[in-house]
């Protein structure tokens, strides 16, 4: 079996890294992502309506049950970053008066509009018929859609997802979300689509979601193996494409995750390491837990700094922003609206900081990681505010060393390759020294 690392469309996006060969799952994924862009850019002929919404806490099963297409602005920003387009778009937005201090996803999106809203397939993106602002885990979303509404002047509906301030979902929070779904979101979807709400369709979609989620969790947890057959950050971002975006709840996603799981099962059986753009990793030297989103403008270069050193990510939190499935949550067709509420409420950045630290601690221990690496993103307060403390806590609780690199999501001005590389190199040295120290200590 062979592999091409293709186009991830993850929690916040997608990429393009060329490799000579392809796995079946990669081919399937590419086709799926392309088909969604083709459907989106062909609404004049297919008569479909478009709903723009965000990745974390997205209501894909519900959106699909109304026959709407799903467009995710973060994904577009990432696509543009991978194609080295985002820098110009961000500067266009800044020239229009947007501050250099705010989230670059927003500016990339606004800049993309100014440049004709061209989709990655080269065709113009249709204007959304509905802005579904389901804001989970980040306040920026709220203002982002106010800005988009100003531009598109289309129907906008908001789903407020309360924050888990005390690290738990209360009945009041759940009731609030369900009430909004019933009285705000569903009526808006009915109005825009012209279709009545069909709970059975929603249930069917949710059943399929749960199936795909089972397989995804299996794949992510395969990183407990030594060597790990996957990279649970750079590699996993590709795996998350379908489930975090327009495909959760579809048969295509079920098929994709089944095939992916079979491929990884095979890798485990063969004792193989993960596939990287540099080929299969044959020597696993450092196992890391990663916190924070990746950098997209230099994704490939960034990844290379890891695999060249034999560093592999065995667990990451970014792969949980579109849903935390490895801690037991599954979409539940028997309680569809409550379950959608729990899904939104449970996304990674909607969990309070102590819970996020607990999760990282568990990852470091369960995945037998050598340390925690944080990629701190200039754009993103939702992730970044508090990360230094998270690092200190993890070091204290696990004894594993932490390290910090700083980049941005889609703004190329904030990726300093030399700087990042230096930090990583010293970090790997630190892990080495720690190991030698441990060996000496245990020999005594």
């Amino acid at each position: 079996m062979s592999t091409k690392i293709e186009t991830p469309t993850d929690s916040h996006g997608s990429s393009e890294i060329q490799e000579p060969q392809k796995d079946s799952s990669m081919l399937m994924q590419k086709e799926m992502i392309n088909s969604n862009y083709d459907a989106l850019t062909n609404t004049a002929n297919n008569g479909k309506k478009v709903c723009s919404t965000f990745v974390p806490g997205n209501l894909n099963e519900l959106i699909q049950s109304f026959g709407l297409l799903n467009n995710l602005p973060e994904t577009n920003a990432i696509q543009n970053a991978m194609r080295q387009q985002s820098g110009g778009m961000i500067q266009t937005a800044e020239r229009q008066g947007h501050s250099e201090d705010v989230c670059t996803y927003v500016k990339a999106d606004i800049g993309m509009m100014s440049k004709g809203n061209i989709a990655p397939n080269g065709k113009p993106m249709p204007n959304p018929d509905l802005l579904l602002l389901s804001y989970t885990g980040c306040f920026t979303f709220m203002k982002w859609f106010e800005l988009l509404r100003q531009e598109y002047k289309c129907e906008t509906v908001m789903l407020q997802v309360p924050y888990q301030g005390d690290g738990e979902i209360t009945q009041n929070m759940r009731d609030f979300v369900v009430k909004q779904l019933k009285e705000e979101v569903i009526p808006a979807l009915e109005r825009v689509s012209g279709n009545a709400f069909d709970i059975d369709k929603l249930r069917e979609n949710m059943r399929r979601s749960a199936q795909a989620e089972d397989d995804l969790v299996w794949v992510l947890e395969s990183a407990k193996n030594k060597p790990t057959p996957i990279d649970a950050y750079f590699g996993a971002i590709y795996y998350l494409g379908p489930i975090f975006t327009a495909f959760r709840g579809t048969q295509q996603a079920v098929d994709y995750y089944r095939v992916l799981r079979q491929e990884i099962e095979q890798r485990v059986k063969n004792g193989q390491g993960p596939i990287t753009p540099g080929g299969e990793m044959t020597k696993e030297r450092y196992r890391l837990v990663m916190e924070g989103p990746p950098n997209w403008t230099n994704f490939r270069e960034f990844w290379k700094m890891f695999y060249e050193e034999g560093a592999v990510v065995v667990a990451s939190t970014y792969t949980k922003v579109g849903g935390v499935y490895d801690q037991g949550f599954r979409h539940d067709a028997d309680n569809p609206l409550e379950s959608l509420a729990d899904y939104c409420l449970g996304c990674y950045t909607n969990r309070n900081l102590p819970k996020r630290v607990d999760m990282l601690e568990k990852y470091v221990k369960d995945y037998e990681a050598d340390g925690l690496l944080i990629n701190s993103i200039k754009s993103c307060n939702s992730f970044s505010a508090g990360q230094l403390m998270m690092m200190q806590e993890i070091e204290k609780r696990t004894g594993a060393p932490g390290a910090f690199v700083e980049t941005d999501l889609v703004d190329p001005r904030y990726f300093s390759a030399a700087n990042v590389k230096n930090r990583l190199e010293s970090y790997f040295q630190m892990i080495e020294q720690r190991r030698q120290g441990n060996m000496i200590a245990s020999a005594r």
Partner: protein
Amino acid sequence: MSTVEIIKRCEELYEDTYFTAAREWKAADPSRRVIGYMPVYVPREIMHAGGMMSLGILGGGDKLEVIHGDAYYQSYICRIPRSTIELGKTGRLDFVDGMLFPSICDVIRNLSGMWKLMFPDNYVRYFDVPQNYKDDIGGNYYIAELQELREGLEKLSGNKITDEAIRNSIKVYNLNRKLIRELYDLRAEMPQNVPSNDVYLLNRAGMVIPVEDHNSMLRKYMDAAKALDNPIRDNCRIIINGSFCEQPPLNLIRSIELAGCYIVDDDYMLVNRWLLGEVPTSGDPLVNLANAFLHESADSAAKYCDHHEDVGMYLLSTVKERQAEGVIFAAPSFCDPALLERPMLTDRMREHDIPHISFKYAENSGQMQPIREQAGTFADSIKLWS
């Protein structure tokens, strides 16, 4: 008492990062509790009804040396969370029994969790508010949140917080809001007698002393200010927008006035003016607080605006009401809510030909010269073209 004496007292309170007044209040009775809160809004009535003092924490200002706090934040995050951590880590808040972190942005939100880890014995609550303003949706959610807050505070203080007590506290805060409204009206009417330096310091005093004392302080100040006969200057009338969380150094406010601008409205310390009208004092007090929050509260970037047509209309109406000639958008660096909203607000101002300028500050900004120049040029241009 003269305005100068009152403001001198306010200045002492402002500069006292050990919060001596609140400490003394607490020390007078061992059953007393103090609850800190951050911007923008918390229902202080509920604390008051439980016999607790609410203490507004607005960062460390430009005098506090931040040593510990910087170790917790990257350079691209605003100043207020780091100086707040500094206050906590240096024992300046060691008498505070609980902290409320209102839902305003991701930084404050995450700080609530950091506080839980740093001060595990504190009562720490992330105070969520609805962005849905319908009574039976956002309203019900909010009432239940208020109830949870009430129960949490009851547990902390050991005092039952009765409906009657909340109704009484609403009365006290109604008076406080009324006086603050009067103060703002008075400044807009006679800015030569009521400088923004004074208004700001009076507002700040309200953060750190019992509300009853604040009420009498406001009354005395206004009585004295009305009697003054300061000459009116040929300043232009402007509104400050975007400073609702991290506060500018006092020097910045003074510099704007010195540059030829009378500030006739602002969004500093919105908690004092968040609820715009009288909150009813009969009936279910939580329902009344919720209704006031949903239907009669100030606007800020921390809120979701339901309809595009309404974006910036609050600011616009304030401009008209205060007969302001321009708006200064002054936001803290890296403040996502203020800076994301700013382009929408400037568009609205442009639509209505309202002159405006923008700049950023930090609570510890030292250099005032550029701001004075910018504000001065702005004031000149308004005078020239009006």
